[in-house]
């Protein structure tokens, strides 16, 4: 049994942690969130220089060759600063799909550009009706000539507005919710027939609804095998869920620390409100929720790293725990800050909104609990 990190991992984590502390305070974040793009290219370039964008990629493409543990460490620290730059969208999702299913040519062309910070990507998987079902896809890709013609609409595409390329999940065969018959296609966002409507979410990020109107792409645009997209989606969503859970853990830690600090300094009735046992017990509960979330995160990472056979259950359990702990922790953080907790000026509400957004991404707690039940107890 060993829950320690390697020296290299410790250095990676410290590098992110230091940067967030020194160069990404809440005011900086606030002004980035208010900018039209909802991200800063300057910061992104620094992320590239510091090597963070290379973490999950193979060394042959100039990557760091990192494991899920490395992704987890980076994301937890980014969470502490509620960093807006699209690490999840470009590196974990877009890059992850290329790394898993991209052809040698696609990888050679795009991965080095991701690493150097000159390529932004997005994964367009959600549709209006799909809710939490990744396979519920009505967007179609029809074989045509030497390629495909894509028609349909994707919604809430993370980093859609800034992306140079998007990987879109489209149906090449099968029924609307079938896991078979899904194909992933790489589409430049300046291709004819791609229309983006971009808008801002509560957590500050700018996302897009993307309409594909007779968009034509060559056959080499397929990522992985035709009709075999679901396995790739599943794989990348697994690591992305771990990444999101790590980000959530970072946020939860910040919320707990800030709330604890506030209750030690805020005085009412002549004493610090932290001296009230009613509040002490609540903060013990949020502390325990944090620890339990961390444990499930580590469990899922170990399972994934060791190629265990319980990974699906671990991921469902983790997403349930992130949802429950997150709600408890941000709820208490707001409540214990009193009126201050309700203001937009304080960072607490912004941490809360990011946790809320994480909860609805790749299935909320109830969805994953139902999946867990199905896996464990049905048939």
């Amino acid at each position: 049994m060993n829950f320690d990190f390697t020296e290299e991992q410790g250095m990676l984590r410290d590098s992110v942690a230091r940067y967030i502390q020194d160069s990404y305070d809440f005011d900086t974040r606030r002004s980035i969130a208010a900018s039209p793009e909802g991200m800063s290219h300057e910061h992104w370039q620094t992320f590239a220089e510091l090597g963070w964008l290379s973490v999950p990629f193979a060394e042959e493409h100039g990557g760091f060759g990192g494991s899920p543990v490395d992704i987890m460490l980076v994301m937890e620290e980014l969470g502490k600063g509620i960093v807006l730059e699209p690490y999840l969208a470009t590196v974990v999702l877009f890059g992850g799909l290329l790394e898993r299913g991209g052809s040698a040519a696609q990888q050679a062309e795009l991965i080095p550009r991701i690493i150097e910070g000159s390529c932004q990507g997005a994964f367009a998987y959600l549709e209006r009706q799909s809710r939490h079902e990744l396979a519920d896809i009505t967007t179609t890709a029809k074989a045509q000539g030497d390629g495909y013609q894509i028609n349909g609409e994707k919604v809430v595409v993370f980093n859609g507005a800034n992306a140079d390329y998007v990987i879109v999940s489209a149906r090449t065969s099968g029924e609307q919710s079938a896991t078979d018959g899904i194909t992933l296609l790489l589409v430049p966002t300046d291709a004819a027939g791609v229309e983006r409507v971009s808008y801002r979410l509560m957590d500050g990020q700018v996302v897009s609804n993307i309409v594909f109107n007779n968009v034509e792409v060559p056959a080499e645009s397929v990522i992985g095998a035709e009709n075999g997209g679901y396995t790739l989606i599943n794989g990348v969503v697994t690591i992305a869920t771990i990444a999101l859970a790590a980000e959530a853990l970072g946020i939860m830690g910040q919320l707990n620390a800030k709330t604890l600090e506030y209750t030690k300094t805020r005085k009412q009735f002549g004493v610090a409100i932290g001296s009230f046992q009613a509040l002490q017990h609540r903060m013990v509960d949020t502390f325990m929720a944090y620890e339990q979330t961390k444990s499930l995160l580590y469990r899922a990472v170990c399972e994934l790293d060791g190629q265990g056979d319980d990974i699906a259950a671990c991921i469902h359990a983790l997403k349930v725990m992130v949802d429950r702990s997150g709600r408890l922790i941000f709820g208490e953080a707001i409540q214990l800050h009193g009126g201050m907790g309700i203001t937009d000026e304080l960072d607490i509400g912004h941490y809360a909104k990011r946790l809320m957004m994480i909860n609805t991404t790749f299935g909320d707690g109830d969805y994953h609990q139902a999946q867990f039940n199905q896996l464990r107890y049905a048939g």
Partner: protein
Amino acid sequence: MDTKFAPEDLAFREEVRAFFDEAYDEELQSRFKDLTTFKDAVIEWQKRLYKKGWIAPGWPKEYGGTGWNATQKFIYETERSAAGVRDVIPFGLNMVGPVIYSFGTEEQKERFLPRILSSDDWWCQGYSETGAGSDLASLKTRAVREGDEYVVSGAKIWTSYAQYADWIFCLVRTNSEGKKQDGISFLLIDMHSPGIKVNPIVSIDNHHSLNEVEFNDVRVPVANLIGEQDKGWTYAKALLAHERTAIAGVPDSKRSLTEIRSFAAREVNGGKSLLSDPLFQKRLSDIEIELMALEFTELRVLASVASGGAPGAESSLLKIKGTEMQQAVQELRMDLAAYYQGVLPNELSAEQLGHEFGSQARQTYMYGRASTIYGGSNEVQKNIIAKAVLGL
């Protein structure tokens, strides 16, 4: 034990329904949604209620109340919620109005009550300060008497709708000796007085309803003092105890639950409606069962008040459970919207967004976090029950 409505109650219910149906029209409703038209729309709606004679069901008849019995009030509230009709802004009608008719001079009653009823004056509540929230009695805003005037200096915070207000009712310190509750006075201050400055505070739902109100040597006629100097705490406490008919908000929660139910029947995940999902059903029924109980708890409290009992710590129970249920309903509604909850208001048209209430559900949920904080936080309410009911 009897909760059946008599024929005259049913007739009253019909009258209430017919009135809301006609008077609460869609044009008016659309104006509530836009911050630039909100204030005028609220005033217009309240004036319609005033003309109908229904603006103040809680007031004694002699001051302009409806003279309804407890059943009629219950019916009115239930129908109001069921029709989705917004409640009145409470500060004038439910808060300072009762204080004025209970403790004010004849002159104060004549001067203020008619304009509260007609909504010609917009009131706000100036109690909280940065250092005095739950521990309200430690407030520091000072009023020093100079001849026929008080000179007020200090600042209030979290003052809802101060940006619209013509008047503010304030708790101010007139005496620093002795027990801190004993040196507080209840003062009515004209918001248009020189020396008042209102600073906006944006809340986590991205709206502006909260404010800080600064008082820089504001001169207030002594005639605006309620009751006796230094006795303001007594009046403020009476106001708190003056049971608000709808403290638990059960009818609104029930209405929202009905809406959630019909939406969940249409919302599909993986080919199945959300309403058929056992986990969703459990969340829904957990709330509905609590509300069924709370509705009767409220009726029991109202009945005991009607037969002469004092509304005391029971109203704390209603507040705690009521706000917990409001938040549970808001959370469920927001979860229904899945990722659409994240969209900021006015970023997209409803058609582009592809969802009926996502962003609004989140705003309601976020602002709803405040209901367990204001009006005496739920922790403070629990302290009250522990002490006053359980004798701990």
